[in-house]
């Protein structure tokens, strides 16, 4: 994974900086100028989106390594401001810059208190999310990762529902506990590498034995698993979602959770590949438990928002499964599914928000038959539901299909019990397509269809132009990715292939065998990644 060192316009920093500039501007505006707050916030986030389009157009899909890299000295002890984008982060960066202005637009009717502070928090959050995704220095990554918590903590704690304090503190504590261990891990890597650099690319060269890897993987993995959230670390999520204002839920589900899955893919797996191999099956098991458990518990909910929150546990279970299947298509499917989840679950939270603004309740039983007064709303809800349950033609199908296909390929190619176990996991995960239909369509039926049982629902106002614009944009993406996924997939493929290759070359077993042979392993040529990762692992151990 090399660095593309062409001198470039600092698009990445510009994208990150624009929301921050907006936030600074907002800090100077008097507190009662709500319209101005909204305007500045929207303009700043749209600006960031427009600049990020340059990232998209300047991105070279053929290159595996980081691109548009900016590198500057930062702190004396070796931490640098290094940012770059590759196929692993590109789609998530675009998701962030797109979802943020849409979310800001969606709050214009809902957030009426402390608008200035709210928009400052939103914009700072965007900067932090982008920083987390773009950082190539592990300390820089950690700084963004940690600061990111604060605005989200405030958004839940200040603008949330009745139990917002409990939910916000739970969110904060839970994620902080995970992060502390990761910080220790980062320091350990730093010292192990000679105490001169926090650079990610240097960390990839750090030699670690299996015992070290297991500990470090656990330290990083816990922080990420909580964020994802991987079963059983998920119970902060329903509380946070239910109490968060709509915008908080959208960003939380749409982008923040992906920081966990991104962390696994960027750090935990390639830095500690032997540990990833060792922990692979147990994590896949937890992922599949998450798929089934999340779906069933979602089915049992009577609060729409909780239902969507538990559905996230199920969806991210798919993402985790794909990443640890470690075939190119599964990992690419996982990355795409992160984006898909951001779109469909983000849109679901927006839809719930539309209802909440009208009726001030999230209880499914308070609705019923509202497809009659709210025709356009019903259209959006049905389309987003189809995306969420992975109907072919929508984005959700592409992600789930690639993840499951990759898992099956890995299972069929892996000899012995590990292969059988993976096959069983793949089959169990596939039941998610049935369970997803059950809980989503049950909810849709109860909310949209049947006779109107509450008189106040008779004349509910259909979606406004502003709401329709936000939802419509997401619906376009649902079909765009579903029908023409290749522009998205092709931008991930080089980096994913290189990542899997890096994992292989970093494996302790692989190095030992290569040394014993006195030559490079025959799999080490450029096409080696086409062979499933675990085959290489098991095959070579067996020899």
């Amino acid at each position, binding site marked *: 994974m090399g660095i593309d060192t062409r001198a470039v316009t600092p698009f990445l920093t510009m994208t990150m*900086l624009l929301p*921050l500039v907006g*936030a600074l501007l907002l*800090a100077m505006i008097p507190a009662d100028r709500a319209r101005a707050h909204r305007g500045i916030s929207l303009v700043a986030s749209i600006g960031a989106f427009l600049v990020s389009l340059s990232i998209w157009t300047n991105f070279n899909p053929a290159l595996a390594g980081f691109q548009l890299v900016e590198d*500057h*000295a930062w*702190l004396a002890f070796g931490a640098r401001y290094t940012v770059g984008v590759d196929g692993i982060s590109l789609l998530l960066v675009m998701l962030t810059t797109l979802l943020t202005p849409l979310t800001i637009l969606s709050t214009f009717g809902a957030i009426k208190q*402390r608008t200035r*502070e709210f928009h*400052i*928090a939103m914009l*700072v959050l965007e900067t*932090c999310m982008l920083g987390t995704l773009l950082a190539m220095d592990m300390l820089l990554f950690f700084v963004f990762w940690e*600061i990111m918590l*604060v605005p989200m*903590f*405030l958004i839940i*704690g*200040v603008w949330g529902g009745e139990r917002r*304090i409990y939910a*916000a*503190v739970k969110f904060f*504590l839970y994620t902080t506990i995970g992060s502390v261990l990761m910080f220790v891990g980062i320091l350990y890597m730093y010292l192990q590498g000679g105490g001169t650099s926090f650079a990610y690319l240097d960390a990839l060269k750090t030699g670690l034995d299996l015992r070290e890897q297991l500990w470090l993987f656990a330290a990083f993995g816990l922080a990420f698993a909580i964020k994802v959230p991987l079963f*059983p670390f998920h*119970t902060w999520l329903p509380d946070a979602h239910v109490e968060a204002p709509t915008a908080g839920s959208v960003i939380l589900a749409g982008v923040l959770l992906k920081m966990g899955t991104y962390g696994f893919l960027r750090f935990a797996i390639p830095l500690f590949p032997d540990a990833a191999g060792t922990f692979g099956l147990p994590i896949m098991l937890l992922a599949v438990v998450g798929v089934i458990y999340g779906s*069933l*518990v979602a089915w*049992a*909910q009577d609060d729409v928002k909780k239902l969507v929150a538990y559905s996230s546990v199920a969806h991210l279970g798919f993402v985790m499964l794909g990443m640890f299947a470690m075939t*190119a*298509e599964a990992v*690419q*499917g996982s990355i795409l599914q992160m984006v898909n989840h951001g779109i469909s679950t983000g849109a679901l939270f927006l839809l719930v928000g539309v209802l909440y603004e009208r009726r001030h309740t999230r209880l499914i039983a308070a609705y019923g*038959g509202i497809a*009659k007064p709210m025709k356009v709303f019903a259209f959006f809800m*049905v389309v987003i539901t189809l995306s969420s349950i992975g*109907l*072919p*033609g929508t984005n959700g199908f592409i992600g789930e*299909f*690639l993840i*499951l*296909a990759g898992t099956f*390929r890995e299972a*069929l190619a892996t000899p012995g019990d590990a292969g059988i176990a993976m096959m069983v996991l*793949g089959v169990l995960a*596939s*039941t998610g*397509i*049935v369970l997803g*239909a059950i809980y989503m369509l*049950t909810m849709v*039926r109860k909310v949209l*269809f*049947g*006779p109107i049982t509450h008189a106040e629902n008779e004349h509910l106002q259909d979606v406004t132009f502003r709401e329709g614009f936000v939802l419509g944009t997401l619906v376009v993406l649902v079909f765009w990715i579903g029908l*023409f*996924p290749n522009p998205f*997939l092709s931008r991930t*493929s080089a980096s994913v292939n290189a990542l899997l290759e890096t994992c292989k070359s970093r494996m302790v077993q692989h190095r030992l065998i290569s040394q014993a042979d006195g030559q490079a392993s025959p799999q080490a040529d450029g096409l080696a990644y086409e062979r499933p990762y675990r085959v290489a692992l098991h095959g070579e151990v067996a020899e």
Partner: protein
Amino acid sequence: MSMPSIETLLVVVVLAPLVGAVLNGLFSRFLKHSTVSLLGVGAPVVAFAAALLAVIQWLPLRASLPDASVTVMLFKWIEAGPIVIDASLYLDPLSAVMILVVTGIGSLIHLYSVGYMHDDSSYARYFSHLNLFTFSMLLLVLGRSLLLLFVGWEGVGLCSYLLIGFWFTDMDKAIAGKKAFIVNRIGDFGFLLALFFLLFHLNGTLDVPSLRQAVADPTSVFNTDTAMVTLVTLLLFVGATGKSAQIPLYVWLPDAMAGPTPVSALIHAATMVTAGVYMIARLNFLFVLAPVSMAVIASVGAVTAIFAASIGLVQNDIKKVLAYSTVSQLGYMILGVGVGAFGAGVFHLMTHAFFKACLFLGAGSVIHAMAGEQDIRKMGGLAKKMPFTRWTFLISTMAIAGVPFLSGFFSKDEILFKTLTYHHVSGVVPEWLSVVWFALALGAALMTAMYMFRLYFLTFSGEQRDHHAHPHESPATMTIPLVVLAIGAALAGYLGLPDPSLNVWEHLLAPVFGAAEESILATGSHALELGLMGVSTVVALTGIGLAWWLYRGAGQQVPARIAASMSGLHRLLSNKYYVDEIYDTLVIRPLKAYAHFLWKWIDVGLIDGIMVNGPARLLSAVGGAGRRLATGDVQGYAAALVVGLAVIVFLFL
């Protein structure tokens, strides 16, 4: 003016209904009622015309084409890792027949809908969904890759869901739609698993011709690993049981009658429900390699045929009788493809599309005339009032009952005949099974003749028994489709006459089925076939005679007496063998209870209550600090946040 190429025409076939669906779906508020009709009916008609022109051009060319096929590459759909899936269309004898059936019968049903749905407040939404269905069905049929077939496969399921629950303010209809989708998804789960195995063994493609090539190679894994092929074909068949309403997943189809009647005709009789039959026929070369799977398929088909027919004997809702009849007839088709008579199975699919669509539309006409009444006990005497509906209904009833020289007679007979000539090559499957299948199918044929003529007599003969409604013949938009379909129901059988020299059907489809059928079907004697025709004629006439005696003739008191003396059996049949109740008790309720248990006890109780909040209580001091921060000076905190971040960012400058 030169004719557009086959490739262009095929694109038009698929896109015309999609355009119709999008226009009526998104812009209905700007469209007049007549424009909606024009778009809604125009879309499938354009598709039909394009399909016809494409097939006409293709027919003389086909001998010179590889596998008699034309491929239209649209675009590369999915590329990731080794996976390469193209979006491309594939015209071959099988898909040629199917697109004509789908667009032809589809156009008639769209036209009929203009009259039937005239006053509905969601007229445009109806046509949008019906067009979308046509699009999905054409994609299913024309998709060259199994994954594209799967797009259509789930797409028709979606449209079925939307149209069953079309009148969504009625909770029962909304529930029926949901049930259809979920039961279909259970089948799709099997289908998808099969695709993953095929994807692996085909190195990342799901292209049907490539699969065929791989299967043709005697050294390929498909010819060496029978266990794998058996598993894959059984998983595919799970998908077929969902879509084609076979035991154990047929339960959604009777409930699907909640949808508007033209929908029942198009989706739940003529096209979508035959998708499972089509899929097995499409992959015939794979299925014949797995004799155990074939035996399972044939058995399920035969049992479903007689099982559903027996329920049909006692139903009183005109659409429910037809629904169970459809399940039963689909059982025939599945039996056909299960014994390797792929051509016969698809032949019955085609004839059934005519007569069953005609029957459903006739039922719709009756319901229309009876002001929504669907109970046949309250009908009677409609023959005089509705001549077009009556005669077309009678012709179709005769066709499905197997009256000689009408379409159903030829197609059903061929399946019966081929069931007996099935050649048990493998030795794994006992040969007497063929006889059992044959007996079941013959029993089902008897019942079919009985329940169909019971339906006909109760509805049209005698005197009107309930005088609330004032029946009248339906408008021309409804009667014209009835007449066209009845002509098809009468004559379509002549495409597949039981004589090799006259059998146009078999000849046409030989490039698709020839090799597979030869490997599995013995050439039965012509005498046997003619003999069987005699047998099934007797069976059909017996059934009709019994129906006459019981519902028109001297035996009119007998049904009530039978019902009284065998009340247990009657209750069992009336309640459809209690299958819905059994599923509810054994599957749905326990699962729902389990979901509640997971939520209340595991999630809220164990994980959150003990594992998370337990230690958290110890840290409540920290929580208190957080609380003070959150409710304190937010403004100050936010400012500090911005400044802090700015400092960090600018440190490096």
